[in-house]
């Protein structure tokens, strides 16, 4: 388990589609506020660490954490799983959506230590044995993104939506995907991509 963000290096400039196809494991050349500041605050007033065992994309992690650590910060800052994105950090944008025990949730509003024993799936865990998840392929087929920042959250949310089995029509897909904001406005293609993936499965 990489403890301190031993992020994979990339020697070439990835294309947007390569990022999606690879499950977005390429690190972003930008830093977001929160992580570093939280670390220094913690150092000034040492917290009582808490142990928790989480299974993330099939790999078990025995963790000892500052209880303030959100699942989102655990994934990004501790485990170098930077596919999951930090947008608003307030549960309003859906960019941080992951699956906990198969259910889609906002990882920014979840303390990681509360998830002892849970199974987490992130965008990095959607592809199996090198084959894209049908949703990933459908997003490529429909060009269901522009900047791609919301895409990992859209994919995990859509995977949760398919598992729920409640959405039958494009209107119902739109309603049940409303927790995922796309500032580029790729909604029409996102709905078409999810519709395609749902059709393939049924």
């Amino acid at each position, binding site marked *: 388990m990489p403890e301190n963000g031993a992020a994979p290096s990339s020697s070439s400039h990835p294309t947007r589609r390569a990022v999606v196809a690879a499950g977005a494991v390429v690190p972003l050349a930008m830093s977001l506020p929160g992580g570093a500041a*939280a670390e220094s605050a*913690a150092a000034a*007033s040492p*917290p*009582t660490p*808490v142990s928790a065992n989480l299974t993330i994309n099939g790999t078990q992690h025995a963790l000892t954490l500052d*209880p*303030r650590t*959100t699942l989102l910060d655990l994934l990004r800052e501790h485990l170098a799983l930077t596919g999951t994105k930090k947008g608003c*950090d*307030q*549960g309003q944008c*859906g960019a941080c*959506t992951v699956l906990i025990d198969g*259910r*889609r*949730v*906002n990882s920014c*509003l*979840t*303390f990681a*230590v*509360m998830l002892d024993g849970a199974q987490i799936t992130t965008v990095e865990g959607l592809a199996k044995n090198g084959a894209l998840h049908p949703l990933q392929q459908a997003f490529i087929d429909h060009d269901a993104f522009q900047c791609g920042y919301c895409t990992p959250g859209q994919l995990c*949310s859509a995977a*949760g*939506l398919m598992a*729920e089995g*409640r959405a039958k*029509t494009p*209107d*119902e897909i*739109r*309603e*049940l*995907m*409303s*927790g*995922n904001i796309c500032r580029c406005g790729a909604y029409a293609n996102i709905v078409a991509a999810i519709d395609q993936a749902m059709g393939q499965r049924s």
Partner: protein
Amino acid sequence: MINFQYMRATDVADAVRQMAGDRNAKFIAGGTNLIDLMKMDVEQPTRVIDITRLPLRQVEQTAGGGLRIGALVRNTDLAYHPLVEARYPLLASAIMAGASQQLRNMASTGGNLLQRTRCAYFYDTATPCNKRTPGSGCSAIDGLNRMHAILGASAACIATHPSDMCVAMALLEATVHVTGPAGDRTIPFADFHRLPGDTPQRDTNLAAGEIITAVELPPQGFATHYTYLKIRDRLSYAFALVSIAAALALDGDTITQGRLALGGVAHKPWRDPEAEAALRGHPATPATFARAADVLLRNARGYKHNSFKIELARRCIVRGLTQAAHGTPQPQSVKKIV
């Protein structure tokens, strides 16, 4: 976020014991509201007691024909429960009108009751707010108050309660089961949330150290003539400007029982016995509904940016009761108002 001690409670008695006597401790379940408020330093608990392992996830029929909902039942699990869909579709619809599927997957029934206002000044620790810092003043009364209350507000606070689920539970006349250092008790839903008065820092009548264990619905679910109509700034995933839960019992065209609960307009889900009395015994017509709306809104007061809500509420009441009378509830995935 300030540092805190994290504890896990093993059962209800353990949770009550761990909470006892510590006013700086908080229970955490879904976390969707508390963690957000902790990030903003609006909530600063020094101990956080994780209650997610308590055995409060059951939805059970009661001997009296009602439904007992464990406090930890998640919002989606409740909305999709076969007994709720069949017997209390108003509650299912209201739940699905709130938040997003991700948040509904996390949020608990008890936590939904305890969520705090989304007033921007409550969230902004740089501004006065009587709810956050008693005695500091209300920034909303003369501020940006487009989302704020038109009924039951006070000079100290014009915040609204943000829940959709609670509006339906108020209409259904649920009972809140709690336990605490002084033992078990039940609180009628109408008495659970408070109006702001001069103590807006108190959202509910839950006593110190008490924990919600369940919410119980009475047998009557109004599954035929009901609607939950929510009007908001965008078509999904936004808090209500005005929402209405409406339910009718009809004998032919005559209303034998009518209930109304409004969200987004007050510090608690708003019901008005006089407005409901104005429905009883009258024909289910727009004229009757308009009279009930006039009664319900007789003391409504707007502020600089939210006076539009009074007329909006009037139209919502008429439209919602019309939908209920026709048996054409507003599905949350259908954006054209039926």
